[in-house]
Every structure is written in C-alpha cells, then in structure tokens.
C-alpha cells in the first residue's frame, strides 16, 4: 500500500494501481470515456487528464500509475483547462443531434459536455462523415459519425468475448470502427458493446426509438435463461418490458450479460402469447373464463385419479419454472396421490437417483471457477450453453489457468485449450475413466497431468454430460478425478432453477416415474408447466406420442404452442417477468424477485393457478397469500448449502453398445426455452439458423453426398430433411443434429442411433 493525495484527500491505495482507480476508490469522479474497469487501458480519449504535482503536463489518470507521495489535482485550473480542451476536440466531429439520438439521456458524452463543454462551438467547418454499418440484428451501428473512437467495443471483443470482430480501420481523422468486409458481429456477448459504447454509435437494434431512458421504470430480476442467476435490470413502460440491462454483481455476471439474457425479453411481447384460458370442445378451441377452465382441469384429474388411478397422472415442469411453482406442482400431484413429477426433461439417465447425497450443483461458486488454475470441462457446449461462464474461464486462462476439454464436438471456445479429447458420445465414459486412471497413477502428461499440476482444480460436467445416457457414470468418474487431484467437481446446471427443483422435491421420490419413464410408459393425464414437449424433452418423438395418446393434457404455458394439437386445456400463465418467485442458481444462490410488469391479458402467475387447482381438488394446505409464504414453506428447515452435494456412490462404469451413426445433439443457444424461442431478433442471428446435419468429411464421402445438399435424417419412426454440412472437428461415426428446434422435433432421442441417407 502506498499513500497518495488526490484533491487534498489522503488516500491509501495498492501499489501498481492507476490514478483513476485510486480516485474511484475514494469516491472522486474523473471524467473518462475509453477507460473501463474490466478492459485494458487504451488512454486514447484523453478525457481523464489530471494535474500531477511535478509533472510538466497534464497526465491521463487511467494510464498513470500511482507512486508514493504523489499529489493529484482533478479540478485544478490546469486539469480543467485540459479536460475542456479535450471535450472541445471530441465535439469537433460529433454530430449535435442529441434530440434524435437513441442514446440521449443516458449518454456519457452528453453528460460530460454539460460539465466540460461550452455553450457554443468554435468549429464551423464541415464535420467528418462516417457511413452506417450493418453488423447484425442485435447491435445497431447506423450512426457511426457519433463514434468518438474510444475502442471500448474493439477491446471488449478482443479481451472478453475472445474474438475480434470489430476493429478500428484507417487512421487519423479517417479512422472508423467497422467489421471485416461488412461482416456481422456474431459473438454471443455482443450486446455488451451497446452498454460499453459511451455515445450513441452502437445502440440496441430491438430497443431503437422505443422509449427514452427517463420514461422507463427499472425492476430487479434474475435471468431465467441459464443457470448462473445473472442479475437483470428489467426496464418497463406502460406495463411492457422494453429493455433488459445487466445488474452488476462481481460474483455472478460482473457487469456483463449474454445476448440471450439481454434480448430474450422480445419473446415476452410475442404475438403467440396466450392471454385467455382455452378448452378444446369437440375438436374446437374455445376461450373460457378461469373458473370454467380450472373446474374442467380439476374434474378431469379427479376422474382419472378415481378411475385409472392417480399413478396415471404425470406432471412435467421446465427447469426455469420458479421454486414456488415447482413446489406447488409437486405438492398438488402428491396431494392427489401421484408421485410422477419431474423437471429434468432433457435428462436420459436417472440411475443416480437415490444414490446421490444431495442436490447436484456447481460444486463451487462461480467466482471460484474464475480462480481455478486447472479446469476440466466434460461434455459442454460451453460458449453457447453458458456464455458468461465461458467469458469468466477465458479470463482465468489469460491469468495462466489451463482448461482441458472432453467433449463430442470441437467447437471453438475462443481461448487457449491445454488438452482436449474429442470423442464420440459412447466413448466419453471410457475417455474420462482413462483420465481418472492416469490421475490416480500420477501421470504427468495430457489432461491428467495438467490437472495434477494444479492447486485449485475444477472438474465441471456440462449440459451434454448431464443429458448423456451414462450421465451417472460420468458423474462418478468426475468425482474420482476431483478426489485424486484435491479438486472440486460439479454440474453447470442446464436451467435457471435446477437446484431449486431438487430442493423442493420436484422429482419422483419413491415409486414415482421420472421424466423419461413418464413418457416412455404413457400416462393417461399430463400436467405441463411451461413445457413444450416436442422441444423441451430428451426424446421429442416419444414426448409427442405420449401427449397424443393421453386422455387429458393440461398445458400451463405463457404461449400458444404445439400443445394446441394434443392438449385439452390451455392455461395462460405468466413468464418470470410477470410473477414474483425464486430461482436457485447452479452455485446454490437463492434469489427472489418481484414481477416486473403485470401479467398480460388474463394470464395469471402459475403459483396462483396451482393454488386454486389445489383448493378445487381439496388438497390440504393450499391457502397461500404470497409467493413468500410458498417459499418459506418450501424452504422451511432447509439449509440450502447443506443440501447441495454432488457425491454419488454405487455407480458401476461400463461400456455402451452402439451401432451405426450416433447422434450428437446440442440445444442451440436461442432454442433453450419458450421465451428465447420467440425473441425475434435473437432468432435472426446466425446462431439461430436452421439446424444442419453436421458430419466429418470422411463420413460424408462414405455417404456419397456433397455438403450443402438435403439429406433425410431419421430416428425411429420420424425423419427430418436437413442440409448436410462438414465439420471435421467432429469424431467419425457421429452426426450432429440440434434438438429443441421445430425442424428436428420429429426426431427421437438426443443420443443414440441415427441414420442419414440421400433425400
């Protein structure tokens, strides 16, 4: 620690920090544009010039390291003169179009020019013109003349997103920010450039000209789209969500947000929203009132429970349903005598049930992952499944951490990977077992060697590993590896409230059926909470068949969806922005939130719907007044931290028999849940394009087809026509065909045999 003085204030600060950091610590504001605490120092805007004693000229505070006894003046005559001079230069070429600029009211340049600018301009010559750019459906770069060339967006791409898609071309007064040959920005974190841009050059395309910042109310919320629990500032006007911004939390999302979290809100205002309860009568959908709809549901469930038996009723929820909703759903089902309730819809191996000591979780905090020095990621489409976790690991790798990967695809993680084993799904257990063996015998090479050389080892199982047909074996092996390397292991959960689902027992306890079993042995009645079975389940074909065979399907959903074909009742429920609730993130963080807006139309929060259903079915204890009461009951006496435990025992590992081509299925980043699937701007990105059948070029030549042609991909009874494409990063013997997309909803399980033939 060293002592410096800023504006007469004595400050103790760490050696090696900069003047601007020291000033911010002490609560002294220094004007700046290009400086950002999470980015490298560029010192190119010159706005942060300050006077330093004994320095002949003003110095940029962002790039000047502190030294013992340094005296800094941020508001002295010299400093202010320099800052005003810089401001005048910045405004020379900046259009004075604030009234029509989307950034107006939340613009750093506008704010600073009030403080440091003059009332008039001395510059009367022509301003430079910079042409508009089209860099994709999310980020608007229509008014690049407003750019002050701070290069924050460029540095964000290079340093945080891991790919340099924007750059500063040309030089001097011709310098401009652009992409290479009119390319689009495809990073899954691109929206952060909008936040970073201190002026109105990069703005949000979906939000453009929708509202002024001062007209918006700001509500706290939590992201429902991945398992990190990222903080959201939901901005609303006239009872509509118009924008979502990050809520800063260094422990979770820092100051970033993935594009999925940021732009998914468009799905909330989708035309497909279900706003009135509906009942199918004589094959026709009729709008009815809530009373009639709920009585229809209660009667239907009662009839089946009394007739065929309660075990003929099954309930499925998505993992991003709130804690309260899942708690009430299982309470309702158990109240009418059925134990068939589950939220792990894409899981296919349930053999760890009953052998686990607690609820599977991340095994460490998100911040711990950033501090790990050796990481093994097993079965994860990391960048697409958990964009911000990938960004955090990218930072760790830059600090010297080694990341190792075992997976079935070789997608670019945009960071340096120490070792990787890309194998077919059926070889994953064997590969991981080999790493466990090597680690136990203190091998110094390969993945095991990398892990053995670390002090803080993290072994993480991704979505693919959790959905794998031998998931329990992978879990047991990850545990072994963590044990011998003194590391931690855990699951990067695939949904916002997966941990919550376990804690409130939204899983079968005794003789009940799990999600897969419920669909494999069709029930007479299903209660669906947020579920679109053909898109959310591990085996789309089987899910649809089960729905169609059922006598009664009660679909609680925010949207009109495929259920119109097989459901009997559609109950409009509120998405997470329209209800209060709680999510427990992968790291076990319990976060409650309030509704940001009122439910649309006659939609109601699902917890209220379940409460009335409980009352109609005369199940005891459904008298809740608030979600808080539900949560208090659900978590009463539950020590969340103590319940989180990944330890598993009694799992035997063995090889899986396969024949023919195997399917490798990812759930594309913008197909993960019902809201995201209806966010139009996200659906216009490259990540959301029509799924293809990806094959190694050798497999393709065996088939005798060329890339780009249509092929027939088939599983079981169903098939889909897809374009075939080459990915030599894939192992031979596999076909990568995405799940969760309407184009592939006719296919079967996400793992297993699949055939590809000429169309």
């Amino acid at each position, binding site marked *: 620690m060293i002592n410096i003085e800023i504006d007469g204030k004595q400050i103790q600060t760490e050696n090696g920090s900069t003047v601007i950091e020291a000033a911010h610590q002490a609560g002294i504001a220094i004007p700046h544009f290009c400086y950002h605490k999470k980015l490298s120092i560029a010192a190119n805007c010159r706005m942060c010039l300050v006077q330093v004693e004994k320095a002949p000229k003003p110095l940029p505070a962002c790039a000047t390291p502190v030294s013992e006894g340094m005296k800094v003046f941020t508001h002295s005559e010299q400093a202010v003169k320099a800052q005003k001079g810089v401001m005048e230069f910045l405004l020379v070429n900046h259009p004075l179009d604030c009234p029509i600029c989307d950034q107006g009211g939340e613009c750093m340049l506008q704010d600073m020019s009030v403080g440091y600018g003059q009332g008039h301009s001395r510059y009367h010559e022509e301003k430079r013109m910079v042409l508009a750019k089209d860099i994709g459906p999310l980020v608007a770069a229509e008014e690049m003349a407003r750019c002050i060339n701070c290069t924050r967006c460029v540095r964000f791409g*290079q340093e945080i997103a891991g790919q340099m898609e924007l*750059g500063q*071309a*040309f*030089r001097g007064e011709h310098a401009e920010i652009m992409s*290479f*040959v009119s390319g689009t920005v495809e990073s899954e974190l691109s929206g952060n450039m909008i936040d970073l841009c201190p002026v109105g050059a990069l703005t949000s395309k979906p939000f453009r000209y929708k509202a002024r910042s001062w007209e918006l109310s700001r509500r706290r919320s939590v992201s429902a789209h991945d398992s990190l629990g990222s903080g959201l500032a939901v901005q609303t006007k006239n009872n509509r969500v118009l924008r979502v911004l990050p809520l800063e939390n260094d422990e979770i999302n820092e100051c970033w947000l993935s594009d999925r979290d940021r732009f998914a809100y468009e799905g909330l205002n989708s035309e497909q929203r279900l706003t009135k309860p509906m009942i199918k009568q004589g094959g026709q959908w009729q709008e009815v009132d809530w009373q009639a709809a709920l009585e229809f549901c209660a009667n239907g469930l009662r009839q089946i429970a009394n007739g065929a038996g309660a075990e003929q009723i099954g309930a499925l929820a998505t993992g991003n349903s709130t804690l309260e909703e899942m708690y009430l759903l299982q309470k309702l089902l158990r109240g009418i005598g059925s134990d068939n309730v589950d939220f792990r819809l894409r899981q296919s191996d349930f053999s760890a049930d009953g052998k686990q000591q607690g609820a599977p979780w991340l095994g460490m905090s998100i911040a711990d992952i950033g501090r790990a020095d050796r990481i093994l990621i097993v079965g994860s489409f990391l960048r697409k499944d958990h964009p911000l976790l990938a960004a955090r690991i990218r930072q760790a790798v830059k600090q010297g951490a080694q990341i190792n990967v075992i997976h079935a695809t070789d997608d670019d993680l945009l960071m340096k990977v120490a070792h990787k084993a890309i194998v077919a799904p059926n070889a994953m257990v064997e590969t991981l077992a080999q790493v466990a063996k090597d680690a136990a015998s203190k091998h110094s090479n390969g993945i095991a060697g990398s892990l053995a050389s670390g002090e803080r080892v993290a072994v993480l199982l991704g979505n693919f590993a959790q959905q794998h047909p031998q998931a329990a074996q992978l879990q047991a092996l990850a545990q072994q590896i963590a044990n011998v390397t003194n590391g931690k292991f855990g699951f990067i959960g695939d949904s916002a409230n997966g941990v919550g689902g376990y804690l409130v027992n939204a899983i079968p306890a005794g003789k009940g059926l799990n999600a897969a079993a419920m669909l494999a042995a069709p029930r007479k009645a299903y209660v669906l909470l947020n579920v679109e079975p053909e898109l959310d389940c591990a085996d789309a074909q089987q899910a649809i068949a089960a729905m169609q065979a059922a006598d009664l399907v009660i679909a609680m959903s925010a949207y009109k969806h495929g259920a119109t074909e097989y459901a009997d009742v559609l109950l409009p429920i509120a998405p997470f922005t329209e209800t209060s609730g709680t999510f427990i993130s992968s790291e076990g963080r319990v976060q409650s939130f309030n509704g940001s807006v009122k439910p649309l139309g006659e939609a109601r929060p699902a917890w209220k719907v379940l409460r009335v259903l409980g009352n109609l079915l005369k199940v005891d204890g459904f008298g809740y007044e608030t979600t808080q009461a539900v949560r208090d009951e659900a978590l009463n006496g539950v020590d969340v931290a103590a319940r989180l435990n990944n330890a598993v025992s009694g799992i035997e590992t063995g090889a899986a028999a396969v024949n023919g081509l195997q399917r490798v299925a990812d759930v594309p980043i913008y197909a993960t849940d019902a809201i995201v699937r209806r966010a139009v701007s996200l659906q216009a990105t490259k990540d959301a394009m029509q799924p293809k059948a990806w094959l190694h070029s050798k497999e393709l030549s065996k088939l005798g087809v060329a890339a780009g042609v249509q092929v027939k991909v088939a599983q079981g009874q169903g098939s889909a026509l897809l374009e075939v494409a080459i990915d030599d990063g894939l192992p031979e013997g596999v076909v990568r065909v995405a799940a969760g997309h309407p184009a592939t909803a006719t296919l079967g399980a996400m793992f297993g045999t699949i055939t590809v033939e000429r169309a």
Partner: protein
Amino acid sequence: MLSQQITTLIDKELKKYPADQRQSAVMAALRFVQDEKGWIAPEDMADVAQYLDMPQMAVYEVATFYHMYNLKPMGKHTLTVCTNLSCTLCGAGDTVSYLEQKLGIKMNEVTADGKFGLREGECMGACIDAPLLNVNNKKMCGKLTPEKIDSILADLEGGKA
C-alpha cells in the same frame, strides 16, 4: 490462397520472431502480397490472417492504417507523389498536374491500359530532393522536372523499372 512464393517469404520472415508471435510478420506478409499482385484484396487479407493465426480484422486494421498498401488495383506501376509541405513548397502541385495531364488520369486512378496508377503520398523523409515520387514503393525519384518525369515514364514503359 497465398502462393508458394509468398508463404516461403513469410516463413523466412517468421524466423525473426518468437514462435507464438506469428502476427509480428503481418506487415511483411502484406508487402509480399502487394509485390506479387500489385494490391491487397480482402480475400488476401483473410488468407494472411489465417496463415498468421490472427483475427481478420486485425489484418485489415494494419492494411488500412499504412498508406503504402494498395487497397484496390493501382496499375502495374504505382506512382506515389509526395504532397506534404516541403514537396508542395518545392512545386509538388505542378508535378501532380503534369503527371495527371501526361497520363490522362486523376489522383487515385489507373490508366486504361493498367500500366500506371497515381497516388498521393506522405512525406518520404527526403525533402532535400523535393519534389519526390516513389515507384511501387521501391524506387524513389527526386528533384522532379517535366523532363525527368518524361524519362522516368519512358523507362517504365520500356520495361526498365
């Protein structure tokens, strides 16, 4: 695709830098491309990026930053005339008009036969010989007069570069 000659030259250049710093060779690589093709097309920049394992945009930044890289075809012989202060004081304006009239093209244009291209250049650091022009960034010609320009053009026409 980069030609065999170019990659050989780049490989030689790469030996000057640490193995994990391949992008250090980007300026040289772009020069080799321009020497062979006369200009650097975006596809060539993409190829250079791939060869040096660096982002395409980073190559584009370099190629657009430095004036001597031609971003469009500039003829077989690119004549770059310095128009900075010293040269202008010594009559670079007349040099430019004479060249434009003689070749029948304006600045940043190429003659119809594709032989000559005319560019404006920045100070070449040889003001003592002002006014100056540079042929293909390789050969500097100073103390220009109409007669001298005629002989330079004649030499180039005749194949004596």
